[in-house]
């Protein structure tokens, strides 16, 4: 199996043909495109009139206003640019948790690959950041088919291990991103909530649009184990021996508290929150993601498991 078919199978690509990745807020692309940029430019979208100042191009003069009022006004238009999308993918050890439906990493990687494919197909600029304890890989946003190959290659060569430092990775990403862009963070977010909040806040402060995509396994949702188990930390936490029947209630309570915290954080920072469980088909999850992402023009966060439409 080659790298492409590993992450992008034909059926999935067929489903993605009719989908479009859009940004809810303004973005700063490098080329003209489908998305509203922060600058005034030469698009057909009229923004405002402004009094003429010396040095303004005469071709932007509104002659009709001059003729009627004998005053000099310049017409200003929005700039339309392409979407800059930064995909941040968690490579920490906890993403390797796998069940019959596959590992969270595989699921998340395919999700990232599909998103990148979709965006590149729209001539958007797409970047990739892999992180675990730190930023392991940084592919700055670019457009063109070659970027897809670079992304797929990076996914293929990623080493998934170590502890997660999501907050630190988001800080580093925020510092590296020089323009406003859509930041999609794909992770299980099994890290302290405060770190997440600080990282997201940094991104938001820099004007980036954020989509938080939490990938979890059904076991992690329900903790439906029976009998004594020794839980060995995938991020080097050590072992914990427990009777699941006894620990379940506490686990679920803490798990939901953490998710609720994430949701509150996203709501506060005007981000979108999506939860994806790996036993759901990827196309459904992706469609759900894109629909909610495109519907969220107002910036309201969206929660719920992907596929539960």
């Amino acid at each position, binding site marked *: 199996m080659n790298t492409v078919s590993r992450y992008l199978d034909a059926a999935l690509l067929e489903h993605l043909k009719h989908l479009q990745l859009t940004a809810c807020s303004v973005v700063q692309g490098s080329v003209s495109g489908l998305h509203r940029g922060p600058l005034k430019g030469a698009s057909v979208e009229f923004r405002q009139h402004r009094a003429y100042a010396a040095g303004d191009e005469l071709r932007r003069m509104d002659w009709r206003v001059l003729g009627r009022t004998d005053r000099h006004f310049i017409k200003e238009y929005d700039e339309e640019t392409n979407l800059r999308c930064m995909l941040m993918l968690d490579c920490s050890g906890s993403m390797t948790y796998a069940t019959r439906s596959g590992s969270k990493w595989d699921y998340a990687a395919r999700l990232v690959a599909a998103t990148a494919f979709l965006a590149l197909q729209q001539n958007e600029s797409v970047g990739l950041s892999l992180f675990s304890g730190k930023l392991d890989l940084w592919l700055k946003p670019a457009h063109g088919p070659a970027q897809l190959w670079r992304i797929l290659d990076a996914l293929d060569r990623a080493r998934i291990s170590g502890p997660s430092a999501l907050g630190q990775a988001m800080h580093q990403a925020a510092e590296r991103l020089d323009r406003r862009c859509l930041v999609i963070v794909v992770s299980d977010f099994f890290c302290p909530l405060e770190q997440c909040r600080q990282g997201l806040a940094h991104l938001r402060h820099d004007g980036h649009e954020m989509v938080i995509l939490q990938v979890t396994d059904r076991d*992690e949702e329900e903790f439906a184990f029976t009998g004594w188990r020794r*839980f060995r930390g*995938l991020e080097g936490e050590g072992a914990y021996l427990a*009777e699941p029947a006894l620990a*379940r*209630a506490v*686990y679920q309570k803490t798990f939901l508290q953490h998710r609720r915290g994430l949701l509150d954080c996203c709501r506060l920072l005007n981000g979108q929150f999506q939860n994806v469980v790996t036993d759901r088909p990827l196309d459904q999850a992706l469609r759900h993601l894109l629909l909610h992402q495109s519907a969220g023009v107002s910036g309201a966060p969206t929660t719920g498991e992907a596929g539960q439409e």
Partner: protein
Amino acid sequence: MFLNPTMLAGLGGAMLPLVLHLLARWRYRNVDWGAMMFLFGTDLTQRHSARLRQWLLLALRMAMVGLLAVALARPVTRGAWGTPAGGGPVSAVIILDRSYSMDYQASGRSRMQLAQEAALAVLTGLRPGDRAAVISAGGAAEAPPAQLSTDLQSVARQIMDPSPPAGSADIAVALLRAADVLDQGGPTGAREVYIICDNQARSWDGVGASLANTWRARQQAHEIRLVVVPVGGQESDNAALVSLELLTQPVVRDTPTLAQVQIRNYAYTAKEVPLSLWLCRDGRPDQRLHAGPVRVEADAMAAVRLPVVFSDLQPAVLSARIEAGGLKADDRFDLPVQVMERLRVLILTGDQREGAGFAHMASFAELALAPYRRRGGDLADVAVRRLDEWPAGGFREFAVVILGNVPEFSITQARALEQYVYGGGGLIIAGGGLCRVENYNTRLFRNERGLLPARLGQPRIAAWENALPIARYDSQHPALRFLADAPAPQAAVAGYLPALLRSDARALAWLGDDQPLLIEGGFGGGRVLLLTTSLDLEWTNLPLSNAYLPLLQSMVRYLGSSAGPARGLLTGQPLVAIVKDPPDERHITVRPPDGRTMNRAALSVASVGQRWQISYGDTRVPGWYRMQVGAQDLWFVVQSPRHESDLTCLSSQRWQGLMQLLDMQRLGEPGRALDRQIAAARGGRELWLPCILCVLILGVVELWVARPGRSASAN
């Protein structure tokens, strides 16, 4: 203590949950887990709580298995009496006081009813398989021999025997009987003796150090638990008729006789007791002879003497009745009276002197015995004969024969006299100057085989100046009872026959030199009185004293009354009647009181000399018994001993002493059911049911602790 200790091996099963726990830990599966922060995310308290819950569950499961094993081993506890529950059947002997003091009524209920309820409560405390027996202390009914029985219903029926309380209780005797019953019961589990009685002190009179030693030895040998359950209160106010007797016996028709009634007041205050005396015939009151109050001082006895004259020969019962509080059973005393015609007395004298006046002893004796000269009111019909007029047909027609100053007896005469006395006759022998002592000793004394109660010596004759006074006498003897309240007879004895008493004879009066003056001896069914001096003035001036007439009449009455045994009896004493003709046993009927049927086995007939003795032994029921022998109609009165009338209660010190002496425990505190008190004292009970309940409760707790949502709800 465990009844099935082998099942305790199951305690090892309590380790099963621990082993399973350890095996589960050893066999746990590893899970490479990413969301460790949510496992570690629980705070320390929660984790400790979860761990504590795990150990709690383990402990609960171990306890469940362990308790189940303990339950199967049938644990039992020992009670205060040291008897383990289920350690074999209990053998309980209930000593039930049925004496007539239990008839005391208070608050509308008798002590007997309370005692029966207590006895039933003891039975209630027994379980199937336990054995019980009832021993009656006192009581009217002839109780069958007590025997331990598992049929508690029949024991209950014995307890509820409706016969009224009667007789007197002797706890000491009943205790030893209870020990015998338990001995006969063979080896069993716990042995218990319950004494259910009132607080009467009299019932415990027989319990002393000697009885206690005997009892304690048997008690310790057989591990007998002794429990006393006193019933009734501390009431002791009672007045009782203690006795009714006729001071002059036998009762002769138209002859005045004295009836003496004794009333005992057991209360601490003086009482005015209404007394009535009735003459009853055919079982019913027929004539009231006296009615009036009698004052009896506190804790004292009063005696009342009333003259009574019986004008006909019908069988009669003299009945004294009082109306006083306390017990009813002792408010009446009955005495059957045998009224007879004047006694036929034969005076045989050896003095051949003729002449009017008081020439010899026959004159004095005849006058003393029949002072009214047959005009009525005399005690006796007296016949005087000389020796040559010796009755050829014997003396059967005479109640008493007086031999005065008879010189000697032929062998035939001596044998006739012996037959007469042996057959129940009364004989008075008086000395005199004509008496040949050797003949008396040879024919009548016959080396203690004859009727003479003493070997006689040669007459001792002194001058009148040296005459001896009557030094002392036994005033309790019926023949001399008239002297009890009278001054000593002022008589002197100048001559007498020294006497050496036969072994079974006894002197009733003595002279100043300690020689016997009056000697009584028995011979067969009759009695002989030997007066060692004369009945005339030859050796003594007694005939001139005021004691001569009552002495002679009293002696004749005494001997004459020997014709019939007593008919006023105590419970348990046999009815005895003497008849002249051989009776047909099939035609003898005895009617016990209260309509009971006659117990033929208790009837016996035996010959006594020339007469026949009929005896009936079943007299436990007090009341009037009517015996019919042919045409003869005989009435007997059987009464309970009156010492039960003393209701004085045991003092607290005496109670303490008894409990220490007999190693006895006292139960029956008011306000608490007796069976519960016994159960609490016996205490030992099986605990398997509580163990099973504990297992179930632990199971429910285990389910609650282990339920999945418990932690969430707790947090």
